[in-house]
């Protein structure tokens, strides 16, 4: 469906998107994730043919999009976009939703019906006659989705579609998106800051950093096996430990991290510099020095910080180097953790994701 070949977009001296190659098959859902200012919006604008690449080619359904404005319009009409900051056109909510259909010269009655259906879909049926300028942030975001979907696009682009929505509406929108993808086979590319949303919605995640596709792949792969320490940090690995391989037994690898050693599963060779990445939620805390359990790694230390976050607690333990564990609040309360308390941190060798230093640069192109 979408085939970007070495696409770049520069603004003056600044390259917002650099040499991106990306194939997005029909019917798939791709989430762009990445830090603020990394180029997600620019990439989506390129995909929507709002900008022309300063270098590279963009094939849509096999057709080069570099043609005349006429040709680009024909392609653009098969695409719809929900902007990061959706703006209302100066008319009613209904008029906003109907705009794309009016441009396509759809008959009046059909417009009315489809507009009403689209508004209902995003839970805003009552608002058709309201002046769109008076909508709240979240209402406008939903109107923008209705406005895009009502044109029955083949590709739906969404720039942070739920950034201004509460959890309930986020669920609603995600369900709408999933439904149109499943039932109508609409290809979806969205950007999101909500990692969970990326995983919930997308088959493929593309991690964008500094204008490049830093890494892309199945959500689960990206989530579990980030290719670089930056990616790992961005993917939520809270514990990144720099070290080097000192022993190997099959793929069981012993890594020297400053004062301690940990065992991981990896294909890095002895002497190689690596980064060991462990998620906070994969660390278990044991109150005694009881070496029970099958976990390969057990590190003794003292609690240096406990932070409560909703129903979870984030416990930082100094084991020679600091590691942070995420446990349920309830168990933190039951085990009566206190700062200064000695404790054991355990984790399985398989819970350690090892990034070999040689893999860091250059970042893998998508």
């Amino acid at each position, binding site marked *: 469906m979408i085939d970007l070949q070495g696409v770049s977009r520069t603004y003056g001296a600044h390259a917002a998107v650099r040499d991106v190659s990306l194939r997005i098959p029909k019917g798939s859902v791709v989430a762009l994730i990445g830090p603020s200012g990394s180029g997600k919006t620019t990439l989506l604008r390129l995909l929507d043919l709002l900008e022309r690449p300063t270098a590279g080619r963009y094939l849509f359904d096999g057709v080069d999009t570099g043609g005349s404005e006429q040709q680009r*319009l024909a392609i653009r009409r098969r695409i719809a976009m929900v902007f990061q900051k959706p703006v209302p*056109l100066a008319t009613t909510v209904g008029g906003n939703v109907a705009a794309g259909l009016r441009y396509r010269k759809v008959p009046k009655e059909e417009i009315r019906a489809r507009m009403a259906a689209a508004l209902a879909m995003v839970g805003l049926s009552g608002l058709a006659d309201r002046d769109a300028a008076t909508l709240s942030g979240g209402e406008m975001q939903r109107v923008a989705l209705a406005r895009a979907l009502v044109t029955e696009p083949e590709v739906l682009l969404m720039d942070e579609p739920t950034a201004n929505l509460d959890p309930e509406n986020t669920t609603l929108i995600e369900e709408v998106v999933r439904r149109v993808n499943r039932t109508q086979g609409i290809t979806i590319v969205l950007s999101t800051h909500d990692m969970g949303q990326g995983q919930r919605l997308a088959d493929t995640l593309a991690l964008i950093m500094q204008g490049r596709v830093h890494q892309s792949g199945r959500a689960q792969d990206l989530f579990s096996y980030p290719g670089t320490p930056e990616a790992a940090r961005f993917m939520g690995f809270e514990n990144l430990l720099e070290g080097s391989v000192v022993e190997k037994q099959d793929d069981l690898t012993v890594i020297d991290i400053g004062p301690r050693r940990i065992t991981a599963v990896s294909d890095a060779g002895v002497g190689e510099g690596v980064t060991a990445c462990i998620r906070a939620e994969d660390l278990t805390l044991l109150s005694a020095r009881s070496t029970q359990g099958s976990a390969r790694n057990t590190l003794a230390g003292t609690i240096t910080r406990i932070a409560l976050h909703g129903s979870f607690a984030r416990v930082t333990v100094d084991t020679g180097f600091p590691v942070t564990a995420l446990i349920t609040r309830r168990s933190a309360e039951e085990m009566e953790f206190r700062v200064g308390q000695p404790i054991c941190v355990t984790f399985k060798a398989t819970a350690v994701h090892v990034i070999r230093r040689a893999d860091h640069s250059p970042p893998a192109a998508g």
Partner: protein
Amino acid sequence: MNEILEGLVQAVHLIVTLNPEVIEISVRTLEISLLSTAIATIVSVPVGGLIHFREFRGKRVIVTLIQTLYSLPTVIAGLFVFLLISRAGPFGFLRLLFTPAGMVLAQSLLILPIMAGLTLTALSGVDRSKRDTIISLGATETQTVLSLIHEARFAILGAVVLGFGRAISEVGAAMMIGGNIRGFTRVLTTAIALETSMGNISLSLALGIILLAIALAVNLIVMLVQQERVPHD
């Protein structure tokens, strides 16, 4: 300063007694300036829209030229049209000189740059994100321009009102092309010029007040229409 008061009294008198000559001149004035404004609007708003929308070499030059034509003296515009339609001119055969049709032509040409220029300014005021939204929704170039015009409709209506004001109040082209022929091409401004040159200051003022009253009526109608259609398009 008595003349102003006198002018006011005389204006009221002319209006309430339905002075036939004043009414005839006023109606002609309104017809000619409305028609000129309509023609200029139909031409200049889309032209302004296209210039705004399209990127091309020399765009800035064109915009600057249009703005320069804001300074076109009405007499020069009149002269230019005169040379075109005078019997010796290329369009002399149309016999437009000293006719209301010729005046409409001259006034349309005169206000065209102003209206096109203000349309450009109005459209530049529309947020870029609105334009992106419209384009992304699949609008053709024409639809985009129309939608942008709709977004900027207050400013563009302002431009139309200004164009009308310029048309109804100008005297140079009206005099040059119309000739201020009594009963045929005399409009309020040329009548005012005549009365002034005849020393009838309070009558001049009375006619000026009537002209402003007509403009006020037109503006009120525009205002009402505008208020009615705020949220819908």
